[in-house]
């Protein structure tokens, strides 16, 4: 009565029932022992195979092997499920308030003027300009004389100067770097010179220290059109849109002809008569420029008969204030981080 002896279906049914009621690892382990332990039901069945007639043994053996595989697979699956359930409980038990402030919650912030300086440097690098830097304590010679501004010249009134006891001065503009660079690199040349400049002026619209960026291009047969195109590229890239702009004739001792550049008011585009940024004019003055004066080219030891070029100077503080909507110059240099962290 092999069927009585080898009750495969019964064991299987028994296993399935036991497994279904096992909810923990312990219970699962009991099931495992009950069926696959040394005295387990499956083990006993396998052992009793030897009592069967050889022809039955093969067929029953195959069935038992299948049953064994199924039991092992079911046990593993059940274990995974129980693990998942237990983990799920652990996870739920260790739930947190994900809205709490992060650790090390420090908000870094760029300084608008420095950001402007680096942005414009990158734009100008794309147009082929290299950065040249010069000293902030400068000699009268480079700050004035070389730039066609002799000592008696009334143009010195345009730039009230801080002097040092030894006759040096705090550069009043980044223009002295023009001559330094011409002397160092010669022609052709394409440079920008960002940095701090100083003037003896302190009121709501003037700071004794501010930031400029000088640009200089020296080459053969340079046209005002290239200066115009360069300024347009730079401004559009910096403000991220195409702005209206206009040139006005002006005067700087170191350029001839000279002009100033106005851009359309970044706030009101000329549509607000009471605009606080442009005072209703619709225009903002952002840069002075011109074709480099032959005397300045000569001071740079370059032959003005062969080379000419243009130079421009941009007020970085003003550009920053326009781009980032800052209306008080004095906020820029007092280091108050409640201001620095307020904008982007």
């Amino acid at each position, binding site marked *: 009565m092999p069927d009585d002896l080898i009750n495969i279906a019964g064991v299987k049914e028994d296993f399935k029932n036991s497994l279904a009621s096992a909810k923990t690892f312990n219970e699962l382990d009991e099931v495992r022992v009950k069926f696959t332990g040394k005295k387990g039901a499956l083990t006993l069945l396998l052992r009793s195979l030897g009592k069967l007639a050889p022809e039955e043994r093969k067929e029953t053996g195959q069935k038992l092997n299948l049953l064994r595989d199924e039991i092992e697979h079911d046990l593993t699956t059940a274990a995974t499920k129980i693990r998942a359930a237990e983990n799920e409980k652990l996870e739920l038990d260790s739930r947190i308030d994900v809205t*709490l*402030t992060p650790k090390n919650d*420090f908000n*870094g912030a760029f*300084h608008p003027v420095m950001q402007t300086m*680096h942005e414009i440097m990158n734009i*100008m*690098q794309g147009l082929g*300009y*290299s*950065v040249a*830097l010069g*000293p*902030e*304590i400068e000699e009268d010679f480079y700050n004035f004389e070389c730039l066609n501004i002799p000592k*008696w010249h*009334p*143009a010195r009134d345009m730039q009230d100067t*801080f*002097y*040092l006891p*030894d006759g040096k001065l705090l550069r009043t503009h980044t223009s002295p770097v023009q001559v330094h660079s011409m002397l160092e690199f010669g*022609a052709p040349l*394409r440079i920008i010179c960002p940095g*701090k400049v*100083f003037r*003896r002026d302190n009121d709501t619209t003037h700071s004794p*220290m501010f930031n400029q960026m000088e640009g200089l*291009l020296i*080459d053969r047969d*340079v*046209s*005002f*059109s*290239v200066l*115009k*195109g360069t300024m*347009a*590229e730079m401004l559009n890239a910096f403000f991220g849109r195409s702005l209206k702009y*206009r*040139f*006005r*004739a*002006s*005067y700087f*001792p170191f350029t*001839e*002809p*000279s*002009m100033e550049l106005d851009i359309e008011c970044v706030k009101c585009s000329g549509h607000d008569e009471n605009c606080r940024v442009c005072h209703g004019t619709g225009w903002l003055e952002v840069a002075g420029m011109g074709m480099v004066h*032959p005397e300045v080219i000569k001071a740079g030891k370059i032959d003005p008969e062969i080379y000419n070029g243009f130079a421009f100077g941009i007020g970085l503080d003003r550009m920053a204030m326009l781009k980032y909507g800052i209306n008080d110059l004095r906020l*820029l*240099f*007092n*280091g*108050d*981080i*409640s201001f*620095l*962290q307020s904008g982007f």
Partner: protein
Amino acid sequence: MYVSLELLKNFIELEPEITPEDLAERLTFSGSEVESIIKPAEKLSGVVAARIDSIEKHPTENNLSVVNLNTGTGEYTCVTAAKNIKKGDMIFYARAGSILPNGQELGIKEFGGVQSNGMMLSAAELNLADIDDPTGLLILPSSARPGDDAKNLYHIGDIILDVSITPNRGDLLSLLGMAREIKGLYPKAVLKMPEWLRPVKQDREWSEKFNSISIPDNGCYAYRLGLATNAVMKSSPLTAKIDLVHMGMRPIVNAVDVTNYIMLMLGQPLHAFDLNTLPEREITVRAAHDGETMLTLDGKERLLTQKDMLITSGGQAVAIAGVMGGELTGINDDTKTIVIESASFSPVRVGHTSRRLGINSEAAFRFSRTVDPALSKTALMAASVLMRDWCGAEINYRPMSAENNIAEPEPVKLTRKKLSVYLSFDNMNAAAKILEGFGIKYLSGNNDEMRFMPPTWRPDIKIEEDLIEEIGRFNGYNDAPNKLPGELPRRADIGAEMSCAGFIRNTLISRGYSEIVTYSFLPEDFSEKLLLDKNDIRSNPIMIANPISRDQISMRTTLVYGLLSALKNTLASGWREPVRIFEQGRIFLKPDNDLSAPNSHFEPNHLAGLIFNGTDNRSIWNDRAQDFYDIKSDLSALIKLRGYNPEFKAGHENFTHSGQTAFIIVDGVKVGFVARLKLALEQELNVEGVYIFEIDTEFLKDIKKRPFAPVSQFPASTRDISILVERDKNSEQVIDDIKTSLAEDGNNKILDSIRLFDVYSGKGIPENSRSLAFTITYRSRESTLKDNEVDLIHMALREKLKFKGYTIR
């Protein structure tokens, strides 16, 4: 420069459709920026001339009078406190409903039972306080007709352009010059000449004895004197006074007003002497002697040098040439005989003197910007004419003159090639027309090259580029095509300094720092504030010779002061959160602290940072209070990202915490410090726990590159070791000793890393000691290390360390 459009009509006739706004825009775009269009009488309405028909005492108020007025179309009653009126006087009357220049509307008011219809006006109520006694009514010339609108009288309704004149255009500091400029800008305009500029006969010998004019100093190009006798000093004509006020000057007395008026009209500064106050009847213009002094009419004693030029009489200085007159020789109320000085001086000399003495008089302002040397004759004659008209003087005396060589204008060439390169414009004939419009005469040439002669009043035209500018500013710059430059001359390079600055800001900002920029100046007392020693190089900053204030008196020698100010400002604005800030910038040092070293200084780039937990440092993350090791980790990461391995050694700064200060050493060189702020300074700021660092960033400009190396394929073994050390023994020293110990046995090849994982003091550890626990990782590049091999090596290490005096726990 204030340009009266009313007076401008004397010099130029513009097409009538050109509005003041059009003119302002044209001037602005061509280089003379019009800052504003001033309409002093824009709001004025209803004010008319009126005749006083009667004046009666007010029935009850003693200090008031009741005045009956006739405006030609009606009679009105007005109550006034003014005393300077009489029957028959003409005054300005604003009846009820009229509006004054300041916008005030008049009504009917009752004074002690008498109704006053509007009011009679003083000069002040017309915004012309400077022209008359402001306490009385403005009495009009008897020629005034009742009922005439004030707006149409005496240039009251004038419109003024406030024009900013660039320093190269001294010629524009007059109406004559502005007219010539406007003629250039509007070719259809017609130049005119005012009545008083027409030549008069002046051929009589002087009625007064005058010996000579001599001008040994050739900085004086020409010196001329005109004589006016029997002059009567009084107030100038009303219109002239209003003109002067509109053009920014105060009327004084007729003879002085004449000189100012001519200066505003023609640009030639003039001076009027009382002949009888001249020390002697002669004038010499000479260089001053070094150390010579003179009392100028502002009451100041001026110390002179031989670069200055003096007008002297009988050896005595009477004026600093072209700059300012003296106190003694001016016009006074009794002056009858006037000598008018009209001279031409070198702009360089006047510029030097006015700049050095800080005198920016109207005369010095003009002379230093160049006054047309051809003008002195004309201006002298015109001034004489006005002395006749305004002062009743006799003027038909022949002027006396002395002249030195005056530089004549030189021809300037214009080539089509350069013109077209610069402006993308090559119409030479059109260019010549433009230049002629500005008074620059065509001399000769062809379509490729032309020669031009600038007029005497345009000494700024010297080179071809100057001519190109005239054409450029006439045509405007806005229509030029936009182009970009061609092939790059060389690779565009941000450069090491700015690349490094960019790297630093990106790194620190992403680590939660805010970038700040503070002034590069230091206050007078910064070194006391920072407790610096006198002999510290930072205590001896480069001073500013002419500072604006004591707070900004020298150049910074450290960024720490700015950081602390920033912290203070941040706290003052009410910030209570944690603070992390940094600044990059130059500091300024004298070489070797040598105060006398001339002509050299250092401007190293520095970086400084500050962290602070905030005044309200309560946090849900209790273990996250920032301390020394936080700022150290930021700085350390920054330096390591450039490939350097910073060492931190206990150090000292006067302004930092005695027990929490480290010097930062990179490749054997000290580059800066990181520290907690000195408690005294924290207490001064009323805060606790401020950590700062400052380094010289020069070394960070270069990235120290290391080649990538393959990792060992073999597994590592780790062993822990716990060492008892005295309190002041640095962990770095212990690590060094571990390394040397291994090296001494030749085992450094398999040392992979040493990591400190625990520092303990307290229970079970002797007083003044710490227990440092390290985990040491051993790993070979050649084979798998066996356990017993590692055990032996590690055991040997323990013995070595014991031998070096350590207690191994």
